[in-house]
């Protein structure tokens, strides 16, 4: 094993990274159907859940894609499909140029070194019966990297990198606070020097001030080790800080995909507009505009029976007849800002007309 945590050349900046190299992750028309086991006989499904229904995106090396949506939109399923914890029922997943969509467990095992996950709940994602040192060192052990003493050294280094005291190697998870436990989870994810880190709501369970600490840590680590992130969250504020591009999901589909700044400044899809206006904020100016808040009616429909046409039409205040009949395509409205809507906001008349015509 090489000495200390190998330094990779820091990729220049986030956002608009020169796209000479092929993207690290390329997902195309990804689909995952879960059969509903209401039927008595095997496979006699009474329908299926389209958890993920045609999702496509790229993640460039060293970049961060933020994936945002509410519960039931399929973002966690996307995370599991990209890391191949689940097998897609349609579409492709390419990692580092290789099509790993249907690889079996044995072929995937060496990849597990390069693709790691950070989970949401720092209380349940760490085995309470094992020491923190054992938890962080486990990936090395499973991948047969290094001797026991080399692993121990590496673990202690990693603990320090994430801001924990290496002397706490032998402590148990319950002796740490939520934020510290999440750092342990991050240390565990990074110990095999992965290339891709998929973070599934890594700060949702933490207090606000701790969230800020962890977000800063993730940004630092990305810069230092050239990591690529797929960052999943339901909080638009959080995802903005770490993402270059953001994809907004609704009921299994991506409804908007755009560079981060653009999304907040000029949202195109009405759902994004609603999400942005729903976020309560301390900003005085925003508070004064409370009257103009878009409050969506009703609850998100069930993924078992998605609405016809545009899935958002049942809650959209701009919906017209075409919206319930025809599903809008995801088209580029302006320099890499994609949205799927018949009545896109913040766009020039030309792109709007284009949208309705293609649909």
């Amino acid at each position, binding site marked *: 094993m090489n000495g200390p945590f190998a330094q990779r050349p820091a990729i220049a900046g986030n956002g608009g990274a020169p796209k000479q190299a092929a993207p690290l992750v390329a997902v195309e028309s990804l689909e995952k159907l879960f059969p509903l086991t209401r039927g008595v006989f095997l496979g006699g499904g009474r329908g299926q859940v389209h958890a993920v229904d045609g999702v496509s995106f790229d993640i460039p090396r060293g970049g961060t894609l933020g994936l945002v949506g*509410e519960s039931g939109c399929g973002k966690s399923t996307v995370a599991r499909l990209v890391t191949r914890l689940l097998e897609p029922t349609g579409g492709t997943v390419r990692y580092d140029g290789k099509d790993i969509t249907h690889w079996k467990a044995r072929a995937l095992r060496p990849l597990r070194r390069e693709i790691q996950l950070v989970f949401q709940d720092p209380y349940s994602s760490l085995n309470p019966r094992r020491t923190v040192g054992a938890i962080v060192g486990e990936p090395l052990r499973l991948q047969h990297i290094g001797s026991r003493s080399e692993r121990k050294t590496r673990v202690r280094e990693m603990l320090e990198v994430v801001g924990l005291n290496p002397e706490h190697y032998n402590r148990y998870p319950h002796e740490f606070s939520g934020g510290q436990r999440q750092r342990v989870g991050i240390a565990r994810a990074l110990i095999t020097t992965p290339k891709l880190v998929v973070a599934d709501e890594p700060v949702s369970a933490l207090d606000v001030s701790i969230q800020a600490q962890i977000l*800063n840590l993730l940004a630092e680590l990305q810069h230092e080790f050239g990591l690529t992130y797929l960052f999943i969250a339901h909080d638009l504020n959080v995802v*903005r800080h770490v993402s270059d591009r953001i994809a907004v999901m609704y009921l299994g589909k991506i409804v908007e995909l755009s560079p981060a700044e653009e999304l907040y400044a000029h949202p195109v899809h009405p759902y994004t507009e609603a999400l942005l206006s729903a976020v309560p904020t301390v900003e005085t100016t925003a508070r004064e505009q409370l009257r103009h808040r878009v409050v969506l009616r009703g609850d998100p429909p069930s993924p078992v029976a998605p609405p016809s046409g545009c899935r958002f039409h049942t809650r959209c205040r701009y919906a017209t007849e075409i919206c319930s009949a025809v599903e809008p395509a995801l088209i580029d409205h302006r320099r890499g800002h994609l949205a799927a809507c018949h009545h896109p906001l913040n766009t020039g008349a030309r792109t709007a007309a284009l949208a309705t015509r293609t649909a």
Partner: protein
Amino acid sequence: MALLEIRDLHVSFETRDGIVHAVDGVSLAVDRGRTLGVVGESGSGKSVTALTVMGLTRLPNATISGEVLLDGVDLLAMPTDELRRVRGKRVAMIFQDPLSSLHPLYKIGWQIVEAIQAHERVSEKAARARALEALREVGIPNAADRLSSYPHELSGGMRQRVMIAMALVLGPEILIADEPTTALDVTVQAQILDLVRELQAEHGTAVVLITHDLGVIAETADHVAVMYAGRVAELGPLTGVIDHPEHPYTWGLLQSLPSTEASRSEPLHPIEGSPPSLISVPSGCAFHPRCPYVMEVCPRERPALLPTTPGHTVACHLPVPTRRAIGSEVRSQEARA
């Protein structure tokens, strides 16, 4: 006179690991028809304060002192039976997770009717009619059918509406909401907060909204109490506390919020360290180990809650002019960015 007044409340629990000082000298007030927002992170004592008002912390290992005055009558001194008649009828409470807070094995209609019949002598039929009306008022579609539904058959937002309906059906004077929207999606959260605002305007109910989300407070509260380690750090009208904050903890909270308007390229400003354990609370000012402006006196002496501008009190040793200067600096940074 305030509708609810909490005076110097102390609540501690004896546990195997030591004594937990959950609430350590808290004084708050809620006016009729207004909203008090109580903000703080985990372990700040905000939930225990609320549960104590409801009388739900009268456990064998608990030591409670102070006064909780509802319209001048001390709830803490009330015998358990009498308090039971206040609880649910004059002061109602809703909780964070509506799925686990509703009984999974009884129908919704039954649960609401039970709430009514616990306090009033009405027939089953009359109670059901009131339950139906309550469900309609909180905006549940097909309310008549929903009476016979089980909690797991509804979505998260609907369930929280049911909880609200059940809490308000008897027309309480105060509604305590403990993190009512934390477990919900952000669009649903907006709906629920709107609903609470509407119902408050309609019925004149005072609301105590407990949350860790400053944004929610900023949009719904009239008065704000910032709590830390079982104590009140800052207390005052909304504009006072949010726009002219004077406690380092409040500044820290404001600064560590990622927002849709601050600059992306700058790192966030978290508060160093973690919230303290309530068994070994730091000496003097509980916030001193994490405070960027800590002075020599801070670990020695606990700061008293003293007034600054009218109605606005702060517990901090920093001199007032210094605080005001830093406070406006913090706010203009946020606004500028």
